[in-house]
């Protein structure tokens, strides 16, 4: 089993900038763990802390249960795939892949053989003697992966490695990465700001915002039970109705706001009288052309066809944009633009989260 990674109360400040604020996380050995968050939230900083390029201002980093304080980047059992790949442009493809083995003083013939094996693995046999600039973006990507795997790391750190690729190739590489991880059993810590990537590949996902860890959960939990408003809004699409909590009954909270009263499952920190919001996913919203009790009147703006479903964009009378998913089989009866519609949902499929 590969090494686990623990971050214990880790903090990182660059001068006055707090890139990471007091963060703890445990990554299981052999897990595919993603870190998801908007640009500049501190994702790369966390990887650099684990790889040992920088030392935390406070807290500890453990790999395989061992404290990494004082252990340099060149002596940690981690390999990193950089946001910019950082292949060595003056070396051939095979020399790139074998660089870590060269460092470990493996004889040249063995290095070459190992490089060929890895080229096989990444489906680029016979490319060893090319120079890096003679490869396509996707091929470079794969060489970077092979170079990182060549040293047989316990933990592979991937910093948005697919962001430079086009959609088709990205989807293909996602599947390959996931398969590779299963096959090698190496612990993957994968950074992305693309939520569909994180949800599709990971065993668990950590969501970050502005240096603060918001939630660590499986992709399903993250989507169905976001812990904070940030997660609810960042992961997937959602409708938000803010207001004051008027009462809670049997784990169901009622929020009174400008749109009226809406109910949903109460999150942990919801208290009567506190500010909160009801979050409901577009696919939990029912669209009707007749007025119904407990529903919200809105004007249909447009329908965007997204393949499996169509997304109705509407605006409430108060001017708030709303989203509702319309399954394909109902599309023929969907409202036209400008029509008045009534939107409703059941409390069980909505979530009430306190606003901090």
């Amino acid at each position, binding site marked *: 089993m590969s090494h686990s990674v623990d971050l214990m109360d880790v903090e990182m400040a660059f001068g006055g900038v707090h890139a990471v604020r007091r963060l703890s996380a445990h990554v299981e050995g052999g897990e595919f763990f993603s870190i998801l968050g908007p640009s500049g939230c501190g994702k790369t900083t966390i990887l650099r802390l684990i*790889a040992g390029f920088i030392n935390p201002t406070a807290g500890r980093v453990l790999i395989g249960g061992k404290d990494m304080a004082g252990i340099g980047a060149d002596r940690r059992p981690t390999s990193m795939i950089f946001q910019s790949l*950082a292949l*060595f442009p003056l*070396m051939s493809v095979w020399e790139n892949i074998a*660089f870590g083995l060269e*460092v470990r003083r493996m004889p040249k013939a063995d290095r070459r053989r190992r490089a060929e094996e890895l080229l096989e693995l990444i489906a680029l046999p016979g490319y060893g003697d090319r120079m890096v600039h003679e490869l396509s973006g996707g091929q470079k990507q794969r060489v970077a992966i092979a170079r990182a795997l060549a040293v047989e790391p316990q933990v592979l750190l991937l910093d948005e490695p697919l962001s430079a690729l086009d959609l088709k190739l990205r989807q293909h590489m996602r599947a390959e990465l996931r398969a590779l991880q299963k096959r090698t059993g190496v612990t993957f810590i994968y950074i992305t700001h693309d939520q569909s990537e994180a949800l599709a590949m990971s065993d668990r996902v950590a969501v970050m915002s502005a240096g603060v860890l918001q939630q660590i959960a499986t992709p399903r939990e993250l989507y169905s039970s976001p812990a904070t408003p940030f997660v609810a809004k960042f992961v997937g699409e959602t409708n938000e109705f803010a207001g004051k909590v008027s009462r809670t009954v049997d784990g169901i909270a009622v929020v009174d706001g400008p749109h009226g009263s809406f109910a949903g499952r109460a999150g942990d920190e919801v208290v009567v009288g506190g500010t909160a919001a009801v979050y409901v996913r577009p696919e939990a919203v029912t669209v009707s052309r007749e007025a119904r009790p407990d529903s919200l009147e809105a004007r249909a703006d447009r329908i965007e066809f997204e393949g499996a479903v169509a997304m109705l964009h509407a605006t409430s009378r108060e001017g708030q944009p709303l989203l509702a998913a319309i399954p394909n089989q109902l599309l023929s009866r969907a409202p036209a633009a400008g029509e008045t519609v009534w939107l409703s949902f059941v409390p069980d499929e909505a979530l009430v989260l306190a606003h901090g």
Partner: protein
Amino acid sequence: MGNLFARFGTGLGALIVGLVAAWLVSMVLAPNLMMLDFSLRPNLMPAQIGGLDDHYTLANFAALAGDPVHRVIFLKTIWASALVMVTTLAVTYPIAYWMAKVASPRAAALAVMALIIPFWINEVLRTLAWYILLAFGGPLNAALLWLGIIDQPVRWFGDFGVLAGMVYAYILFMLFPIYNSISTLDTVQIEAARNLGASTPRIHWRIVIPHAKAGIATGCVFTFMLAAGSYVAPALLGAPGSRWFTEIIYNWFFEGGNWNRGAAYALVLLTLYMLVVLATLKLFRVNLADVAK
């Protein structure tokens, strides 16, 4: 060239090309051809010029080959210049790397200032400063005596003095090309190598130096040429035992009054320069266009 005409028009373009050509012919080509002519003629009394003895001969070159003292000084100038080059490189490379990759921008700017300011002073005066520092009764000996590192004042003048003075005089010519080329190395490359387990020496050997080789070659060529053609440092900081080839050339021209012999010696030195430049470029596998950048 076509580019030039496209940018400046035919009239201005032709003017620029003409000026460059005129400059090259009058300032570079003509003097060197005159030198060549001088070097191939015997040194004659004014009355003999145009006479029977005034014919081309290789005697001036043969004189250099046949004079053991001058031959030794010539060879010594070559290897001592190479030593200056290597020493300057060894001193400069860490500074250049530090400025380009380690120091904060402010510290790097300060270091550049500190290195440049002395160069506002004339080369002779700068070398004179070393003359004072290295003098038998000078501050260096005093300091070393006081620290107890030596118990007799040391004669620094001679080979050591020349080496120190030249390394100091030419450090910027080595520093800037190397600093420039290291600055263009993406720091992530260094991190990637370290991440794969590379030690600091290996990172330099495999990543930084290959990347900076054009800059290193440029610095080495500059430093070698300046050192081999140097006059002030050997004249001031040298001793009778550490004469430089340029001093011999000077003597032929201005003391021996034998311009023909001087021209021959100078041409030999010039040929040597070219050989060294070409050899260095070959060694570093860079071409002249890279150096010009």
